[in-house]
């Protein structure tokens, strides 16, 4: 397998007027396979259902992994592809089957937050993978935690208020029930990301 670094890093960008970096077929299939990974983690029965039926599954683990393994651009694209597949009606969301209907369901806020979470986690992860040589797992855990506290939980609470008609206090209480599970999933995502980057060192570093 030839490293693609030489062709990408050189001044070959002049052939295309667009400043956007083109994805090769491996990037394309990484995006597609990670969208499938989120779906597989969401539909395989996981941890028992929490209060109000917003289920605790490994779905958010997949979202965080997409961000910290693939970086911000490809990670966000993978999550968006997953959402598109779910919204057109493929049963890839946890709990119920998928389709536009989920936009009116109580977990809509969480779904909307997923691409943003992958973006935030990915942006921080790129810096960590390229700069830090020690404590990578802890730093990646903090990246995931920041992403979930900044995006998933605020938007999740907003979704519960708008769609389930809950007052702010109750929505926060219900959302808080998912925090311990989320912390565990973020720890897991960080440990997994370290293993993956050790096995495939060029995933994030090659554009440096």
């Amino acid at each position, binding site marked *: 397998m030839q490293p693609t670094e030489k062709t990408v890093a050189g001044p070959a960008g002049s052939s295309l007027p667009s400043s956007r970096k083109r994805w090769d077929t491996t*990037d394309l299939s990484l995006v597609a396979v990670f969208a*499938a990974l989120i779906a597989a983690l969401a539909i395989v029965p996981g941890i028992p259902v929490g209060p109000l039926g917003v289920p605790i599954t490994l779905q958010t683990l997949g979202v965080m992994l997409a961000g910290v393994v693939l970086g911000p651009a490809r990670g966000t694209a993978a999550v968006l592809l997953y959402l598109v597949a779910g919204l*057109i009606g493929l049963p890839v969301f946890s709990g119920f089957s998928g389709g536009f209907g989920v936009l009116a*369901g109580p977990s809509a806020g969480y779904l909307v937050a997923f691409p943003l979470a992958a973006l935030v986690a990915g942006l921080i992860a790129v810096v960590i993978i390229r700069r830090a040589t020690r404590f990578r797992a802890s730093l990646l855990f903090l990246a995931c935690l920041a992403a979930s506290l900044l995006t998933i939980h605020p938007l999740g609470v907003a979704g519960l208020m708008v769609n389930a008609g809950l007052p702010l206090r109750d929505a926060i209480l219900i959302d808080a029930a998912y925090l311990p599970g989320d912390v565990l999933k973020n720890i897991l995502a960080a440990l*997994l990301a370290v293993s993956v980057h050790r096995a*495939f060192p060029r995933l994030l570093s090659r554009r440096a």
Partner: protein
Amino acid sequence: MRGYGSTLGLYQHGQGFLYRTPLSLKAVASLACAVAVVTWRSPSTTAITLTVTLCALLIGAHLSPLRILRMLAPAAPMLAILALYQGLAQGWLRAFTVVGGITACLLAARAVTLTTPMQSLLDGVVRLVRPFRVVGADPERFALALSIMLRSIPYLAGLFMDVREAARARGLERNARVAVTPLVIGAVAYAHRTGEALAARGLGEHDGDRDRGMDPHDPGA
């Protein structure tokens, strides 16, 4: 690898006007249902959307009431808890408004997937991307990514079950890291293999003039 492909087949052959309605119309109606329920949250909105959706399913897809109830089964615990909570905390009319609205949206979305074959759904969403070509989107690559995703789901779900079983055999099923690491590594390796296979066949490369004149939906034809 195990057979998880069946979980993705939602289309059921049947009779009725919903089967003959164009996908774009059904999709817009389903989306309008969700927007209406969220924007004008009132008992009358819920009653109207719920009646329209139920009538569409009963008359348009010739479904029996029993089958409609069965379609709601996966979401039933969530709906029941929400109804009970809203009923006790904010009154039963409010409970009807919220839970009835969500039910109507779930049924409306299900009506689309029930009466449209999977391939038409995929073609529809790719057609939707076409206008975004102006800002650099590539419908062909999007369609390729979507189909790679769909064929990866059964593989990854099967791999996940196998990996969990292997962890259980070693008495490590409570160690999530042992149970998931091979899955994620396997997914990345699978993506690399797929990417190389695509490159070897010249698929997914950027050649803007390849799809010129090959469009089956060409209005000039």
